[in-house]
């Protein structure tokens, strides 16, 4: 947003008449006009009202969690928070986060450099393989390690599983930043007498810092909100403790208070992430590659480099798939509960479809306003919709449970509540997709439609929405996939007796029956792969 804003201020400031227009002026001017087109109009009520509903909806869990935590007085909540056990949890959560983030930085940066900048054989294939772990839910990774090496349970297993599913969050932005750095800078450093290592450390690495920091914060957020891996590995962090406390006791205040602490942590991380993202953008604007860098020859490091890539991809992709295959093969038709599998699969598809539908519907007005209107109100709406980004699934679920028990008992442990949780959690996914899709359609088309006699509402229906439809549909497909894989909120909110693939996988793995768990993992991966495949294909 900010570069276009700057452009528009520059446009509105009157330049002296006759002043020569600098080269490239026209492009800036068009961008400015585009923002101007939206900003001059207040969002129509037909968009504003549903957008406000969506924003309030997204903020409800956050607000209610606080209310609930303080219900028995701030003193009691403070006692829970200041308890020695809470501090212990904090230490364990942060410890796990630090270890996973460090490991992800090492894996992500090394793989990015090897695949982007060196003459690594098959560099492009390695780059694609290194993004695949994003598709593996943390609990599937945990299942694989537990099933193959039960002794990893605990800190080691949790750190392993989480690192191997989340290092692409560092790898992807760092690889993009590496591609954006002008190789001429490195050549200049070499010509000034720096060796290759010193050049990397003093010229390349500092420029990768914003990208790496952004990725690291995303990993930290992932680790703090993760429930699947830590609970299966029986390593107590906030999320697992919240779940245990909720299940074990009728006193709900400890669960609520712990949730608030966790939310404070994640909100701080999201704020940090937003800040580095802004700076990363600035760092990149100067760039612009004149020509691709000449790949660094690896020489005698070729074999070690290949071994490193093989090891990472093997551990992150081949190993979970292999373990899965093994347990599928070991399992006999006796351990296969075909009825249960189909039931869970259809339940998963059903709730995920409902979740994606509601989320997309709520995201539509927010996304359009975010793309077309400026001002504090529009920004607040968008930020509210992004609340789910900072809320771990378990806290959203808990808050909705509290809310339903108190104010909407008929909904307690009913499907609508679960679908609502999905909407709160994944609204950011759908809003981002909608906003990007609307931004793709030039606003001048809306101006033309207005001048041809269409009211704002009809312009929305006949021009904006049809043009944005493919992007919105892609967002819906993405939401569908993430709903399908969701675990903690589904565990807490699913109707009694209903199981999704994720919850069955979690239950069976937790009970150590890996052969029984394997078919659920396989079905989940297959079902999630279909929309992912379609998404990937439509983008190329």
């Amino acid at each position, binding site marked *: 947003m900010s570069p276009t804003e700057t452009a528009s201020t520059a446009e*509105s*400031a*009157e330049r002296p008449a006759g002043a020569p227009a600098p080269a490239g002026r026209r492009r800036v*001017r068009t961008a400015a*006009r585009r923002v*101007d087109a939206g900003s001059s109009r207040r969002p129509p009520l037909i968009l504003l009202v549903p957008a406000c509903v969506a924003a309030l909806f997204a903020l409800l869990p956050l607000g209610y969690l606080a209310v609930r935590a303080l219900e028995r007085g701030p003193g009691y909540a403070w006692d829970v928070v200041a308890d020695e056990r809470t501090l212990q949890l904090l230490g364990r959560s942060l410890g796990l986060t630090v270890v996973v983030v460090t490991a992800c930085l090492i894996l992500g940066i090394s793989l990015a450099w090897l695949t982007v900048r060196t003459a690594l054989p098959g560099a492009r294939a390695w780059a694609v393989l290194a993004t695949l772990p994003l598709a593996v839910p943390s609990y599937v990774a945990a299942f694989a390690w537990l099933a193959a090496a039960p002794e990893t349970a605990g800190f080691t297993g949790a750190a392993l599983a989480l690192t191997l599913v989340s290092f692409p969050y560092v790898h992807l932005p760092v690889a993009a930043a590496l591609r954006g750095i002008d190789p001429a800078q490195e050549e200049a450093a070499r010509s000034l007498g720096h060796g290759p290592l010193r050049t990397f450390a003093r010229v390349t690495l500092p420029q990768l810092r914003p990208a790496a920091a952004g990725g690291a914060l995303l990993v930290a957020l992932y680790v703090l909100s993760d429930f699947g891996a830590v609970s299966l590995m029986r390593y107590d962090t906030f999320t697992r403790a919240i779940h245990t406390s909720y299940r074990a006791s009728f006193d709900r205040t400890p669960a609520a208070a712990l949730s608030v602490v966790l939310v404070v942590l994640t909100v701080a991380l999201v704020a940090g992430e937003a800040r580095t993202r802004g700076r990363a953008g600035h760092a990149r604007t100067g760039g612009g590659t004149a020509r691709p860098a000449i790949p660094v020859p690896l020489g005698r490091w070729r074999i070690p480099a290949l071994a490193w890539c093989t090891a990472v991809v093997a551990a992150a992709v081949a190993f979970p798939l292999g373990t899965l295959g093994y347990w599928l093969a070991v399992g006999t038709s006796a351990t296969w509960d075909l009825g249960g599998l189909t039931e869970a699969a259809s339940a998963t598809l059903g709730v995920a479809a409902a979740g994606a539908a509601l989320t997309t519907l709520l995201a539509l007005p927010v996304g359009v306003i975010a793309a077309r209107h400026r001002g504090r109100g529009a920004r607040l709406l968008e930020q509210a919709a992004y609340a789910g980004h900072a809320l771990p699934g378990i806290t959203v679920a808990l808050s909705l449970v509290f809310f339903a028990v108190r104010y909407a008992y008929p909904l307690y442990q009913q499907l609508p509540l679960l679908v609502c949780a999905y909407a709160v959690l994944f609204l950011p996914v759908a809003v981002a997709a909608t906003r990007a899709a609307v931004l793709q359609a030039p606003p001048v088309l809306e*101006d033309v439609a*207005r001048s*041809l006699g269409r009211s704002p509402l009809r312009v929305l229906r006949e021009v904006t929405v049809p043009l944005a439809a493919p992007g919105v549909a892609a967002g819906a497909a993405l939401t569908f996939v993430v709903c399908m894989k969701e675990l903690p909120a589904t565990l807490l909110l699913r109707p009694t007796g209903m199981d999704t693939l994720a919850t069955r996988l979690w239950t069976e793995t937790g009970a150590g029956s890996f052969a029984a768990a394997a078919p659920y993992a396989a079905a989940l991966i297959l079902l999630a792969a279909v929309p992912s495949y379609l998404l990937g294909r439509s983008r190329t």
Partner: protein
Amino acid sequence: MNDLHIEQLTKSYGPEAPVLQGLDLSVPGGSLAAVLGPSGCGKTTLLRIVAGFLRADAGTVTVGGRTLAGPGVHLAPERRRIGIVPQEGALFPHLSVARNVAFGLTGLDRGERRRRMEEMLDLVGLAGYGERMPHELSGGQQQRIALARALAPRPALVLLDEPFNALDSALRTGVRADVRAALRATGATALLVTHDQQEALSTADLVAVVRQGQIAQCDTPQDLYRRPADPWVAGFVGDAVLLQGTVGNSGSTATTPLGTVALAARPTDGHTGTVVLRPEQLRLTDADTAGAVRGTVTDVCFYGHDAKVTVSVQGLDATVDVRVAGPLSVGPGEETGIHVTGEATLHA
């Protein structure tokens, strides 16, 4: 008729100097007026206010006697009956050419809509292109369809926002002529925003030069070029030779370093001022021709259809540009004579 009247239009975007500062402009119905100005002069703001996408701080806009914007009045863009042709056409990419052109034809029944659509395609010389999608058209074709789409609902006024910018120069002349012919045929009043003085002079019936949010001069292309309101306008709409001059006793001539020149109009005040000539009003002669001023050629720029010869004249600080058609008989360093033809304007 659909005359356009703009009075005292003012607009500012913030605490900075206003973009429009009490701009007045009148365009008779059925004519094509060009709004010409350097970038940042406020011409795009003017266009967006007339179209209804921006609100003016003050001032009125009326078309055919109907007030579109004024004190307490701000008609929504869809109720103004103003067609717009944006830069690069901006056709709806998800609709066929036929549906693009018919987009504004809402009140008609199907048959009439189809007839009008075909009539418009015919008008812009693209009959039979209705089933194509916008991306299957060339840039010039897209621009002509954009015009057909704007003209289809018989708007009272058409606004063209630098519509020829995206076209390469070979194509530009042809599309410009087509657009002009189509506008003539429908009799629509049109406002063409451009920063290209050649385009304004060759396309429009009237040219309004905008400077710092006001109209510096609004005239026919010929009058604008021959009788610019001030030296700035003279320099903006073409090459100009500026000389210091003293008005003669009769008031119809002025004495300048290039000799005595005839004035197009008697100056109302003052005896001295800046005399504005066009380079093609100067002729090169032999150095010793009687009545000619002597000078030395410092530079020659050859363009093909003509050439620009730069001459330094004694008693003048700046050099003088002379436009020469036909074969060149002088080169740098040679002596030449200069002799002035036609009438000049004098600005106090």
